[in-house]
């Protein structure tokens, strides 16, 4: 789980931290969509704005690069796929394949836009508490009559809470079995079964205890509403973001 820590919430007091989640979610969508219409000049502006916003939210440049470490492979793959497949004037030719000038341009654009989307996502995730994201989901689902929004929100937070616990459990069980020489067994089905069954058992036991503990703390779907409120600051931010998007599209 540690690999994903670059995409974690970081507490802070920046403007981004203070904005209402629902607005931030809207900005995420707006910026991602407009980036599809953007070309080098406007993409540079967007990148600068986003990096500035991230720095303002107390993310270091280093941690931003770290977030991209795992994305590089994907970006490279997309870039080459484009560079090789778009017809045009060839830059490098080798037997049947050729990298074209147009291909390089297209590939770079697609990658750049993806980077924008990821930067926006990073700015969102690192300035928004998981509980706020949960609140936003609950708010979004509320208008639909047959969807139990509170239950879904609770399930979401339980999943987030227990995934690392289950991973740890899996690692512990695997280590215990390795200590008893399971590596000598070459049959993967056998090994998966020997790992999976105790893991499932422990997970269900844990779920039982969890249910009792939740009951002990009066779990009920009729609970305090998540405190979401939008202020002048949010509307101002919306105005700024819309202006930015207009500038890019036009």
């Amino acid at each position: 789980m540690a690999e994903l820590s670059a995409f974690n919430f970081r507490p802070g007091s920046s403007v981004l931290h203070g904005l209402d989640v629902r607005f931030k979610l809207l900005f995420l969508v707006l910026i991602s969509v407009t980036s599809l219409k953007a070309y080098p000049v406007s993409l540079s502006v967007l990148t600068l704005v986003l990096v500035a916003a991230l720095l303002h939210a107390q993310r270091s440049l280093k941690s931003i690069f770290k977030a991209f470490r795992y994305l590089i492979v994907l970006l490279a793959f997309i870039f080459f796929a484009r560079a090789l497949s778009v017809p045009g004037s060839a830059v490098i030719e080798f037997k049947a394949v050729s990298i074209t000038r147009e291909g390089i341009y297209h590939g770079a654009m697609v990658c750049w836009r993806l980077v924008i989307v990821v930067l926006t996502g990073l700015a969102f995730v690192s300035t928004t508490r998981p509980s706020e994201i949960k609140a936003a989901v609950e708010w979004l689902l509320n208008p639909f009559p047959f969807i139990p929004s509170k239950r879904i929100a609770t399930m979401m937070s339980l999943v987030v809470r227990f995934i690392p616990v289950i991973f740890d459990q899996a690692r512990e069980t695997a280590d215990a079995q390795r200590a008893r020489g399971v590596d000598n067994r070459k049959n993967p089905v056998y090994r998966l079964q020997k790992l999976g069954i105790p893991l499932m058992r422990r997970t269900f036991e844990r779920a039982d205890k969890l249910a009792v503990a939740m009951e002990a703390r009066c779990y009920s779907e009729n609970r305090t509403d998540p405190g979401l409120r939008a202020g002048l600051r949010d509307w101002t931010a919306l105005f700024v973001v819309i202006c930015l998007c207009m500038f890019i599209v036009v």
Partner: protein
Amino acid sequence: MNIIEIKNLSHRFADSTLGLENINLTIREGTFVIIAGQNGSGKTTLLKHLNGLLLPTAGTIRLAGRTVSENLVKARQMVGMVFQDADSQIVGETVCDDVAFGPENLCVDRNEVKRRVSKSLKIVGMLDFKDQKPHLLSGGEKRRLAIAGILAMEPKVLVFDEPFSSLDYPGVKQILKQIVSLHRSGHTIFVAAHDLEKVIAHADRLVIMKEGKVVKDGIPSQLLGELETFGIREPCASRLGMEVPSWLN
């Protein structure tokens, strides 16, 4: 005032094993009670009756005069329970979300939730961990978080099921200090334990259980000599004929 009155309580599990048999106890408000007994003697089963997680097959339990089954939510708010396995008790994705869980269930106003979260985290000394993920806490910190989670519901009675299991020495001291200070601030305390060494010096009352029955009930210092007949280890100092010292000194 008697905060808890248990009369002729018996509990039979679904598979018809008898978990508790004819238990009678009355506890005054503000008492520090230890429930001692071997594994399987029925400590957890008894404690789960205090907040209605299990309901009696026969007999009654009254909390401040009213039967538990009459108002389960009230009973659970009044009796906060810290389970043996703190890890499965923590439900929030961050420390402060977890503490907010209880008061949110009680439909407490949002600002009041915030106030209670800070207050409870402050009591257990974990305000600095507010945004930490529970998964990254140490064993002692997890248990303190579990305590904060129930303090936020403002209970009168606090129940600790084997609070020292799998804690290191500093962890034990921290939790013990916490329990003692909560007792001083007026809470009624129940601690279930199979090893009395760590808590006995602070208790007002000792209830010994065996095979689902209460076999002894009295003042700790007077029961120390008989512990071993019920499969509970007698504290070292007591064997040497001395008074058992507190672990906090």
